[in-house]
């Protein structure tokens, strides 16, 4: 019994089918519970007022935007090394979810930034690197959809993911450097672990758990869809050839 058994598409679908209801329910419970707890049962921040509550959407989505890319990187590596199709499909399935998380993080950040900094957007290192991450997601998804042969697409996108990871990391530090060189960054050093009091921290943890579960459930669902679509295509091709 090793983890590679789940590389078998049939086994993968059977297992995830069993897990899906649990995952979805847990994600819904965590998200609804965490958001209601966060929105209605925490005090307003003494300086930021009630705008602080957008943290319950902003932080988890930003976290998942980065972790989705890490998961794609891992899945791409597994595809390159062990050539399990499920892994390549999981990477493909994660990309739109990760891109959506990036957009949510950017949008909520802008909505939060407007009352706090007086601007929707500043060329702050963090904001800029998230925008660049979004561009990487776009390129990755565009390459997947542009290539017809599935295996070729999986190979090319996985290599793009590896190279892109290196350059995304480089950009992250380059952007840090660039902004210090140009102008004072907006004061966005809200390191949650240090600054946030427990009363905000616990609902935030629940929300983060909810986003993680939601991400896993969505990736499972999309991977299943991909596997089934591919199977349907194979069946059609076989029918046509006979």
């Amino acid at each position, binding site marked *: 019994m090793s983890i590679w058994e789940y590389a078998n598409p049939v086994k993968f679908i059977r297992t995830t089918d069993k897990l899906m209801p649990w995952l979805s329910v847990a994600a819904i419970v965590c998200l609804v519970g965490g958001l209601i707890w966060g929105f209605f049962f925490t005090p307003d921040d003494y300086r930021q007022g009630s705008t602080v509550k957008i943290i319950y959407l902003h932080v988890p989505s930003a976290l998942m935007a980065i972790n989705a890319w890490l998961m794609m990187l891992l899945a791409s590596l597994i595809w390159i090394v062990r050539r399990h199709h499920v892994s390549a499909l999981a990477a493909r399935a994660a990309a739109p979810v990760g891109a959506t998380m990036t957009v949510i993080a950017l949008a909520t950040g802008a909505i939060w930034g407007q009352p706090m900094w007086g601007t929707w957007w500043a060329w702050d290192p963090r904001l800029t690197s998230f925008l*660049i991450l979004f*561009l*990487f997601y*776009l*390129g990755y998804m*565009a*390459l997947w959809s*542009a*290539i017809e042969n599935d295996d*070729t697409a999986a*190979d*090319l996108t996985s*290599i*793009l993911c*590896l*190279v*892109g990871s290196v*350059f*995304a990391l*480089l*950009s992250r530090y*380059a*952007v840090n*450097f*660039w902004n210090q*060189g140009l102008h004072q960054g907006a004061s966005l050093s809200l390191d949650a672990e240090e600054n946030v009091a427990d009363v905000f921290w616990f609902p935030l943890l629940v929300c983060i758990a909810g986003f993680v579960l939601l991400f896993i459930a969505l990736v499972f669902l999309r991977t299943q869809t991909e596997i089934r679509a591919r199977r349907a295509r194979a069946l059609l091709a076989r029918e046509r050839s006979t």
Partner: protein
Amino acid sequence: MIALLMRDLQLAVRAGGGFGLGLAFFLIVTVLVPFGVGPETGLLSRIAPGVLWIGALLACLLSLDRILALDWEDGSLDLLATAPLPMEGIVSVKALAHWITTGLPLVLAAPALGVLLSLPVEGYLWVVVSLAVGTPALSVIGTFGAALTVGLKRGGLLLSLLVLPLYVPTLIFGAEVARRGAEGLAVQTPLLMLAGISFGAVALLPFASAAVLRVNLR
């Protein structure tokens, strides 16, 4: 390798258009900027280093799909793949040929265009240096992008979408060197970072490009 390089260079010069096109594009972009932002000398001289860098980057981008697409179409890429030269060598030579036909002329033309943008006197040296150090990275990264999209019918737009995010660190450090140079500040740190990116890309990316090209030729 040298034969391949000479062949690529001759093709670029003789095939008409390939060689001067990037340069002409660089000129046009630089000329258009004052129309866009107004002719005040102070403003122009402040943005001149950045404009020169973005112009060079776009000119590079424009000529990327010619690196491999023509050889792919007439089948000479398949012949090269079966040649004793390893694929890594082929893509390196291709990138080098692209740099000589596109990057190098841009470096040489940059001071002349700097005049148009009233670049400060101290800036000329550093614009040239930063472009000379940075354009090899642009060529090598671009070759990777060209290798990714070589098999596609309409790869041009996708190529830009893939390559431009990869250009971000190079552009940041390159433009920073040029800007600091123009303002008379110390340029050592960004210059070293730019050189690091350039050398790193030249050393490592051909392996990725070769792997991608092998997949595409499969």
